[in-house]
């Protein structure tokens, strides 16, 4: 242990602790801007570049960046001496001198770390006037880039390269021309970007934001010739409340359904329903592959989950030689869209083009997924518009509603009922657990001895387990972050030495609960933890906890699809993947 004083307070911390952490552990909150950490999720950005966290260390001539300076025995640190406060203010004033003054119209207004830092430091004017840097605007279907607002914290770059290993963003050029951009400053959409949107989730300012689709939804609702239905993903209900002052982890399923109805959606459905459908298809597909393997037939194992669109984009761009490994099952968003346009539209008495399917997702990649050509018919996409949890919160406020005041209402039928297995889709390990619950019972014909698979839960980046499938040892792995997924893919490329049968991948920290469309967590990983706890609480409280026991799922197979992985479901609920590695070359 190291003994030191911070602001004259004697403290003791383990060796290797930074001054910043030592201070925070002792209730002293040194302000930061570039530093960003997701505690317990293997993500830290500390380039020491912004110098907002500078402190005075006795005996040291220059001020030290607290985020990048380790404690030493006998150190005396001052975090708010006149010299420190002066330097800190100057640093922020300099950042502001090359930052647009359009806070009022900025997407991040009220949720911006630079804005709150300016307020906290009491900066009332910017004494520095000079040239300002400007850069062209760029957008994919998910992410909007306005580099004029960038403060060069490099969080996005670290997220893109270290956590996701997508390699799309890098610091390029030098000095005043320096900018975070894709290779050759091409458009993000032409780069190796997979639209996970995590750069948006970690951006402290409004340089990287989501593509806002609220007006598309309002327009559709206002159009009398359209019937507008909405589906809401599992992770939304455990995070939406945060936007209305509720504690992280508060479950607002019923209030959300009520709010959606009041916003004017004709029918309010649940992506959880199609998550159950996904499990039927994906679980059956897994059993099919396993049975073939047991018979000695050649079959691709492990099977990977295919719910996460950033993950799908990632393997299409990076592992074109392994396209036959992921499940062909569409994502729950995609399945819902297919069912809505093919089965529901005739039931509601409308043409498919006149049925507008809106999804509310914790995700920005879903905005790109829905535009995939194969997920539509003659240019009419199965899902027409996807908005994020944050956009739904905006819409609710815009329409003069307060989620806190909403009554508890149910989803509409027949695409509204769901099992606990569907709820946990929102968390890392959840799709695996849901699939195990169903695959086990379909395979063995027996009731599960225990319904909770603790080995798939928690925040470990890669979880591995062997599940006893009535004598057959099923080897599974669960990964979040595409960096972890890459490790497993490389193993599979090298012959799958761990003998995995089934692997779940989600791109975002902790799964969809940490998605890029969720309320900003600003690096507070406890918020993501609370959302995860809520997901499992919701599951535990559900009367039905296995997808194959959901009566609305049983009914749609009886009435429409026949059986999982049957002819019609293959046509509508399954998809295929493409080699998009060429996209990586800037030399087209």
């Amino acid at each position, binding site marked *: 242990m190291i003994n030191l004083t911070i602001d004259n307070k004697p403290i003791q911390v383990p060796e290797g602790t930074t001054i910043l952490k030592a201070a925070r552990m002792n209730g002293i909150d040194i302000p930061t801007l570039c530093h960003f950490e997701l505690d317990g999720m293997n993500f830290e950005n500390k380039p020491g570049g912004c110098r907002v966290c500078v402190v005075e260390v006795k005996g040291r001539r220059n001020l030290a960046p607290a985020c990048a300076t380790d404690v030493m025995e006998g150190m005396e640190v001052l975090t708010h001496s006149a010299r420190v406060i002066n330097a800190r203010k100057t640093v922020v004033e300099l950042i502001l001198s090359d930052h647009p003054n359009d806070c009022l119209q900025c997407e991040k207004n009220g949720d911006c770390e630079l804005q709150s830092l300016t307020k906290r430091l009491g900066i009332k004017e910017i004494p520095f006037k000079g040239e300002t840097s400007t850069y062209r605007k760029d957008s994919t279907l998910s992410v909007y880039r306005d580099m004029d607002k960038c403060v060069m914290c490099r969080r996005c770059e670290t997220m893109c390269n270290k956590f996701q290993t997508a*390699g*799309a963003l890098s*610091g390029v050029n030098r000095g005043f021309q320096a900018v975070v951009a894709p*290779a*050759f400053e091409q458009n993000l959409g032409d780069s190796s970007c997979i639209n996970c949107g995590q750069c948006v989730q970690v951006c402290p300012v409004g340089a990287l934001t989501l593509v806002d689709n609220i007006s598309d939804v309002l327009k559709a609702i206002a159009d009398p010739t359209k019937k507008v239905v909405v589906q809401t993903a599992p992770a939304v209900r455990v995070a939406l409340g945060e936007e209305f002052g509720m504690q992280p982890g508060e479950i607002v399923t019923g209030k959300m359904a009520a709010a959606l109805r009041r916003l004017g959606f004709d029918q309010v459905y649940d992506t959880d329903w199609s998550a159950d459908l996904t499990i039927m298809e994906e679980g059956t597909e897994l059993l099919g592959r396993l049975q073939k393997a047991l018979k000695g037939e050649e079959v691709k194992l492990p099977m990977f989950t295919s719910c996460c669109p950033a993950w799908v984009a990632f393997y299409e761009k990076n592992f074109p030689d392994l396209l036959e490994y992921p499940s062909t099952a569409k994502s729950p968003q995609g399945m819902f869209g297919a069912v809505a346009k093919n089965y529901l539209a005739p039931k509601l008495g409308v043409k498919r083009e006149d049925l507008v399917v809106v999804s509310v997702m914790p995700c920005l990649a879903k905005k790109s997924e829905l535009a995939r050509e194969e997920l539509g018919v003659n240019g009419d996409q199965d899902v027409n518009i996807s908005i994020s949890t944050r956009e739904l919160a905006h819409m609710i406020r815009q329409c003069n509603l307060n989620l806190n005041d909403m009554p508890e209402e149910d989803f509409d039928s027949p695409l509204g009922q769901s099992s606990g297995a569907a709820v946990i889709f929102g968390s890392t390990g959840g799709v695996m657990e849901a699939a195990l619950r169903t695959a086990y019972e379909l395979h063995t014909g027996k009731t599960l001895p225990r319904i909770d698979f603790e080995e798939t839960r928690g925040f470990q980046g890669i979880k591995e387990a062997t599940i006893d499938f009535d004598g057959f040892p099923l080897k599974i792995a669960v990964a979040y972050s595409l960096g972890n997924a890459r490790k497993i893919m490389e193993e599979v490329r090298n012959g799958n030495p761990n003998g995995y049968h089934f692997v779940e991948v989600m791109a975002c920290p902790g799964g969809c609960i940490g998605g890029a469309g969720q309320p900003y967590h600003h690096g507070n990983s406890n918020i993501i933890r609370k959302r995860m706890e809520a997901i499992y609480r919701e599951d535990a409280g559900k009367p039905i906890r296995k997808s194959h026991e959901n009566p609305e799922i049983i009914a749609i197979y009886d009435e429409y699809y026949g059986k999982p992985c049957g002819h019609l479901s293959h046509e509508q609920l399954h998809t295929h993947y493409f080699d998009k590695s060429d996209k990586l*070359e*800037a030399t087209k």
Partner: protein
Amino acid sequence: MANIKLSEDKINIIKEIAKSFGNRAGEVINVLHQVQGKFGYLPAEVQEVVAHELNIPVSRVYGIVSFYSFFTMEPKGEHPIDVCLGTACYVRGAEKVLDAFARELNVQIGKCTADGKFSLNTLRCVGACGLAPVAMIGDKVYGRLTPDQIPGIIAEYK
């Protein structure tokens, strides 16, 4: 790497240079240095191959190429012209000499003429301050330059 338009020979040259540095990501600057030495410049295709050989994202390679002024993505002409803008040359009118080259060749600084004969660049001090202002064409040094000498010098190479 289906879309790489480089010839097989050139790809092999890059591969060999990368290999000589153990294909280590940490050697990227050394690899780029040698590759530029071979080709004269680092076009996008070349950076793609370097990235592939060192197993790093091409965005990172481009980040490095665009950061260091030594690296260039513009081809050099048959006769590369470098005008010194070091302090001594600058105060003795190097900027006017540079402008004269640009005007005479109708080429922007950092670019190559359409016929590929000349490229125009600037550098900082060639250690011949006594001859300021100085320019180099290939390996030949020209000292005490004035703008009116430039058309004559260029004519030597045409």
